[in-house]
């Protein structure tokens, strides 16, 4: 069994983003910390569990991104991935979802993956489409939002449950090879084992220049970045912490939401 896990590097907290009004670009501030997209941690953990259950499975981790993305691929190897693939985008921080899916597909094609796992969503751009796009490009089956999986039928199919609105689950069985996008909570991701950390440190990543892969031209372009829409304008309660507490208590009492506390 050969498994590919797609891992995206994202910034840790949106507080470090800087918006430059003159260029209309969002850039990373000097204190930005990068890490693996959380949903991809669950995808990787699920791959590790499949390898433990089946024995003999090989796990590759792939990331499309600039030089710093190598750190996230190494992290995947520290957690237990066997092999790391870096599709290097050079100066381009993050190509669009369409290009990313095509780049991953181009790198994956011909390697005989039985199962491709991705996260249900990237925390930064929130598009939720690279997994299913990739499946369609590779002509693999696909299920999104997977919260349970079990390989069956002598390794030819996989039973999955996908989480839908309200927490119900759609149960289906797909033929392998296929792509699953993994929802958080499917498992509890582990910490790296020392042996894996040491091995990851000494192993080489496989680097592929994005420019060397043939992919179709972008399907969409960015017109500009905008500030958030002004929704209902609530009130920010100002003052010292004590004043804020007292004002809030007053507001809640006014609306009969907070009873007086007995002595």
């Amino acid at each position, binding site marked *: 069994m050969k498994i590919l896990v797609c891992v995206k590097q994202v910034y840790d907290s*949106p*507080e470090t*983003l800087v918006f430059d009004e003159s260029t209309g670009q*969002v850039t990373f501030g000097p204190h930005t910390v990068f890490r693996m997209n959380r949903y991809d941690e669950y995808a990787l953990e699920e791959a590790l569990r499949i390898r433990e259950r089946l024995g003999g499975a090989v796990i590759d981790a792939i990331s499309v991104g600039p030089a710093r993305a190598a750190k996230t691929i190494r992290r995947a190897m520290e957690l237990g991935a066997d092999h790391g693939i870096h599709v290097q985008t050079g100066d381009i921080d993050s190509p669009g*979802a*369409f290009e990313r899916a095509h780049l991953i597909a181009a790198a994956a094609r011909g390697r005989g993956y039985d199962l491709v796992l991705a996260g249900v969503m990237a*925390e930064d751009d929130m*598009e*939720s*489409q690279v997994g*299913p*796009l990739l499946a*369609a490009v590779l002509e693999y*089956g*696909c*299920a*999104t*939002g997977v919260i349970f999986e079990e390989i069956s039928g002598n390794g030819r199919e996989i039973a999955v*449950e*996908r*989480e*839908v609105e*309200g*927490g*119900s*689950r759609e*149960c*289906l*069985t797909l033929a392998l090879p296929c792509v699953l996008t993994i929802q*958080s*909570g499917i498992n509890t991701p582990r910490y790296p084992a020392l042996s894996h950390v040491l091995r990851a440190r000494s192993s080489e990543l496989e680097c592929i220049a994005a420019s060397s892969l043939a992919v179709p031209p*972008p*399907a*969409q372009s960015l*017109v*500009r*970045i*905008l*500030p*958030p*829409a002004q*929704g*209902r304008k*609530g009130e*920010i*309660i100002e003052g010292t*912490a*004590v004043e804020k*507490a*007292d004002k*809030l*208590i007053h*507001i*809640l009492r006014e*609306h009969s939401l*907070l009873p*007086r*506390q*007995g*002595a």
Partner: protein
Amino acid sequence: MSGRFFIIALHEGGRIQEETWELVSFARRCGAAGPVMMVLSDEGSIERLAGELAHRTGLDVVGLAGSHLREYSAEAYIRTLVPFFRDASEEEEVHIAAAHTSRGIDFVPQLSIGIDACCITAVEDVGEGSFIRSLHHGRFRAEVRADRAKVVITVLPGAFAPEDIEPGKPGRIRIVPAGDISLSTRSRGTRAPVHANMGLTRAEVIVSAGRGLGGSENIRLLTMLSSLFPKSALGATRAVCDQGWLDYSHQIGSTGNTVSPRLYLACGISGAIQHLAGMRNSGMIVAINTDPHAAIFRTAHYGIVEDLTTFIPLLVDRCLKRG
């Protein structure tokens, strides 16, 4: 926006999903002339579903029917829709919209590849020949333009009010047999949610925590705060439940419980759309968050920029002191 405009109506248990009516508003905002409703199902139910759409919207309806469409699967939808849309000529502009729900986001990207279309997801507003969607935890929005003649879009639930559609006379219905396609995906039915929580749905006040809680040791802060209110319960974001700080029966949001208490106290919650989906109809929303730019402050009626670990004890203390 020129060219043809299709709205894919999803349905569940024989009922058209509510988001479908929002898609009609979206199509209008795009300036679509005479959008066409589409629905996919088996022969037994297609006419009734198509009839409901035609009556409620007054729009023309195409019903694609086949026994492989009895139950939803992405494969069944794509293998039906790709041949249907591929017939449209290369140059012609076509827009196809579906709701950004667990199913919409399941088949729409795959459909886009099959028909060489551009795929734009979680759209919440319309620009001039462009679409607007949120990025970076709702801190920014991106205006994007399609570079293909065909565009497939998922529309964020709640972004377009389902306007009073005045159907006038019902639209025309065309049922198209989609053939009998044998699928490699096998549906095995649906399982009910494991974490429905009556206590939450009945509570008048919900004290709810996000990742900003910092750890399970701070649950006591929430309990302290909630004990000030008589009919109160503890809520949580998915992040909190994933960490195991509270169990999933406390989860509020699109994949958890939907609540509308008189008061919702959001502590250390960023305000992701999937969380807002479960609590935005609360009577009063108060948010406590260290980050003044957190998206939750745009939904909250009252916002307090403070560290919850110091502010909650202070709030409880002031409340008890003042009696």
